């Protein structure tokens, strides 16, 4: 029974994708209904597996030979990510009913979203590294296809290709790790790596650890691989909320959390993870201060919050990082979907055209404020508890400098969040168009559900920690009820320091006129993205020049081609003779 349910978690969205694709574009209402139904069914399947989660494989299909065994292990880490994928996925699909409305090629959109949801659940549930890689690649493909969904817009296509190339290059690290595991242990199973990692020679373990780190950093858009996420904002907003806020970008954090017991012994690995997290949190937070596009601000904010999660994994606080992943998925999806509603109401993404909309869009204002509470980490919202846990563990285990930088980033987070709220809803109205609606019905449904989640999911912390501790035998986590955690957080001095910094951040906005000279000095650097975009462009130019140089070898003449073949034969013979 459990194995069937687990397979259904992946199977239902995929069957839905197939049905919708075959149905075509002719009946939009049917497509909306079908997509919602399949997404909700998948969510129900996932939620019903949660009480039965175990660390043993529930599905084991021997694929034979080089492919190894296909296993699905619904342990705490996996099932909660699958739950996020399916539940937030359902919210995004419900939102898309009104967002996409009567758009063209709806079948392609829904099919890709459902395909993605299934692949994300499969990525988390898979117990075999090779199949984790396959699902990883499928999510990257769906992400590319959905970013470039409006494929007549050159910016969307460019954004999609950039995302694809950067995440795929990172995926090479994952494949390399999978093949190394196979060559040393004879199978691809994650459990064999976590049990026997001491048997690997240190060099190999180090290669694997840093390879996985690169794959995770590229997928989660961390510095220096972060520039694809702001450009991916050309995607339709439900796609952004689902893929680039709640699920796919969390795959990197999931990977690091899953393999933490094996890699923490590598010298320099934890520090590297922490450094990447700290840099991303700080730089992305600063870049969010200068962005003028609603979704770009939220994209930078996602990079920054993912930096917090990386920092937590680096310090060893696996539960804190996963709890923050959970909270962030919900409040970020809420923020993105609210932003999507604002965008459809006004027809623009430019912050310079908004302002003073609080009176005309009260519902969206409330939704945004709730999401902002989570983002800033104020009490009542789930972001408060998870962020405080991270900061506490950072103070205990990590270097003090990093803690101070993260504290500063929390203040910066508060600052750009207040800036965003102010520029949209308060202050003087700069826009010329009136908002056409205050949240259409389907939009309101998903927004209310997500807002409710933001305010209440911190209550699940006790059960969540119990789930993780009991089903993750290699991680040695401690479980505790929610009340203990709440008491611990409320009494810790770090919490009050953090709240003070956040209040300082909010207050800075109110006295912003005093800082204009400082802001103007920093603005060009922030808008240029600290030089990372220029670096990307240079790399692309370098590759193009190399390709043009190598093109000389393609003469199109048979004799040269045969000469190439014979050269290849000679090289192969040399290699074989050397080996023999």
């Amino acid at each position: 029974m459990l194995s069937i349910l687990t397979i259904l978690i992946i199977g239902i969205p995929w069957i839905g994708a197939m049905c919708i694709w075959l149905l075509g574009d002719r009946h939009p209402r049917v497509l909306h209904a079908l997509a919602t139904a399949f997404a909700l069914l998948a969510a129900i399947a996932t939620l019903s597996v949660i009480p039965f989660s175990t660390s043993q494989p529930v599905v084991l299909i021997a694929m034979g030979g080089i492919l190894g065994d296909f296993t699905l292990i619904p342990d705490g880490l996996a099932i909660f990510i699958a739950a996020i994928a399916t539940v937030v996925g359902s919210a995004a699909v419900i939102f898309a009913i009104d967002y996409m409305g009567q758009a063209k090629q709806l079948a392609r959109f829904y099919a890709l979203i459902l395909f993605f949801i299934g692949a994300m659940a499969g990525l988390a549930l898979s117990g075999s590294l090779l199949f984790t890689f396959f699902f990883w690649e499928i999510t990257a493909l769906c992400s590319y296809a959905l970013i470039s969904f409006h494929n007549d817009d050159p910016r969307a296509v460019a954004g999609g290709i950039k995302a694809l190339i950067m995440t795929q290059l990172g995926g090479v690290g994952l494949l390399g790790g999978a093949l190394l595991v196979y060559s040393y242990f004879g199978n691809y199973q994650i459990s064999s790596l976590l049990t026997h990692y001491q048997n690997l020679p240190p060099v190999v373990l180090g290669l694997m650890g840093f390879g996985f780190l690169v794959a995770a950093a590229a997928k989660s858009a961390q510095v220096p691989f972060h520039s694809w996420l702001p450009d991916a904002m050309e995607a339709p907003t439900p796609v952004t909320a689902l893929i680039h806020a709640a699920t796919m970008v969390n795959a990197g954090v999931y990977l690091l959390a899953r393999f933490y017991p094996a890699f923490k012994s590598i010298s320099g690995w934890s520090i590297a993870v922490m450094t990447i997290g700290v840099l991303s949190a700080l730089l992305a937070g600063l870049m969010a201060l200068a962005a003028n596009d609603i979704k770009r601000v939220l994209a930078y904010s996602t990079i920054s919050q993912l930096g917090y999660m990386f920092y937590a994994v680096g310090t060893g606080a696996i539960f804190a990082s996963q709890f923050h992943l959970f909270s962030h998925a919900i409040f970020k999806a809420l923020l993105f979907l609210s932003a999507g509603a604002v965008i459809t109401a006004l027809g623009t993404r430019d912050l310079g055209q908004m302002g003073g909309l609080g009176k005309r869009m009260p519902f969206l204002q409330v939704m945004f404020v709730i999401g902002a509470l989570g983002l800033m980490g104020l009490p009542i919202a789930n972001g408060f508890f998870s962020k405080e846990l991270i900061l506490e563990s950072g103070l205990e285990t990590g270097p003090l400098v990093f803690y101070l930088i993260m504290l500063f980033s929390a203040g910066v987070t508060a600052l750009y969040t207040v800036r965003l709220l102010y520029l949209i809803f308060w202050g003087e109205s700069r826009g010329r168009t009136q908002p056409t609606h205050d949240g259409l019905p389907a939009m309101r449904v998903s927004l209310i559900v997500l807002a409710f989640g933001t305010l209440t999911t911190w209550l699940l912390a006790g059960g969540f920690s119990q789930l993780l501790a009991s089903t993750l035998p290699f991680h040695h986590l401690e479980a505790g009820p929610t009340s203990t955690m709440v008491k611990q957080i409320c009494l810790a001095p770090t919490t009050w320091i953090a709240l003070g910094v956040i209040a300082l951040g909010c207050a800075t906005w109110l006295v912003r006129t005093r800082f204009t000279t400082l802001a103007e000095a920093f603005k060009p650097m922030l808008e240029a993205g600290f030089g990372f975009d220029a670096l990307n462009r240079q790399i692309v130019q370098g590759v193009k020049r190399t390709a043009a140089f190598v093109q000389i070898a393609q003469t199109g003449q048979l004799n040269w081609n045969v000469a190439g073949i014979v050269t290849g034969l000679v090289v192969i013979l040399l290699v074989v003779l050397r080996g023999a």
Partner: protein
Amino acid sequence: MSLSLFSIAFIGVIGLLGIGFYGLMICRNLIKIVIALQILVKAALLGLIAAGNLNGQINLSQSMALTVIVADTIVAVMGIALGVQIRRRIGTLDVHELSSLKG
């Protein structure tokens, strides 16, 4: 020096392979290229039969050699037909001019 039958045959195989590849790289006429391909296939056949002789399993190698002969004849036929058509349509059989896959 008394070499076994097999060694002599393999000297022949390697020599024919070298001549065949040399022909593929030197010749400019398409028909000559097909001739060089035929020489390569003769080398393969010789190798098969000599190995069968060495092994004692001459009948197995004969069956394989029959398949190779069929395949190689078809390759020769297709190559020649292509050559004839290229001569009719494009007008030249010089492989240096037939480089539309350049770049």
